[in-house]
């Protein structure tokens, strides 16, 4: 039981530390990666708290999807490309349809 509590305590502290790091890591990309790690650890905590299905949702949606969105956005905002997401801009001119 104490081991469990110890584990929980460490997990909780790690969460808080990660949270702080996400907010203060100088590199935005790194922050987003840490955010994903935060989400996964959070999911782990929820498994510990007897909520596996919610943990699954958090891992898939909270960490996974949100993380991907964030990475993509961070890529745009820092001017760096997210690997293989941003193809070279094709000459995709707007197709003006004129009068339909």
């Amino acid at each position, binding site marked *: 039981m104490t081991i469990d509590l110890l584990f929980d305590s460490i997990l909780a502290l790690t969460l808080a530390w990660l949270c702080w790091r996400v907010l203060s890591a100088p590199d935005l990309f790194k922050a987003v990666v840490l*955010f994903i790690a935060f989400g996964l650890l*959070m999911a782990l905590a929820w498994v510990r*708290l*007897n909520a596996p*299905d*919610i943990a699954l949702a958090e891992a898939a949606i*909270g960490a996974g999807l*949100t993380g991907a969105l964030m990475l993509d*956005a961070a890529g745009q905002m820092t001017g760096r490309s997210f690997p293989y997401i941003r193809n070279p801009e094709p000459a995709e001119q707007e197709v003006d349809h004129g009068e339909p």
Partner: protein
Amino acid sequence: MSEFLIYGLAAAALFAICLHGIITRTHILRKILALNMMGSAVFLLLITIAERNQVDGVADPVPHAMVLTGIVVAVSATAFALALARRYHAQTGHTELHDEDGST
């Protein structure tokens, strides 16, 4: 110290840290990250409550349902906020909210 208290206090701490982040960070993305983690903090508290409310090993499903709903709501709002932020960035090159970009 019980599981309930550990995670309950962790949720409180996370919430407070994220509030600090939202106030002090000016980068839009950080603000959105902080808001998202703030949501996670609240969900953590709810799940802790569910665990506390368990009867015969079954956790309280109502907070679970609330969290699931909350996650989807949070991701929706986040994604929309990101879409706005990216468009804003694409238009102006700014990564923080500027008033003078408005037409004051």
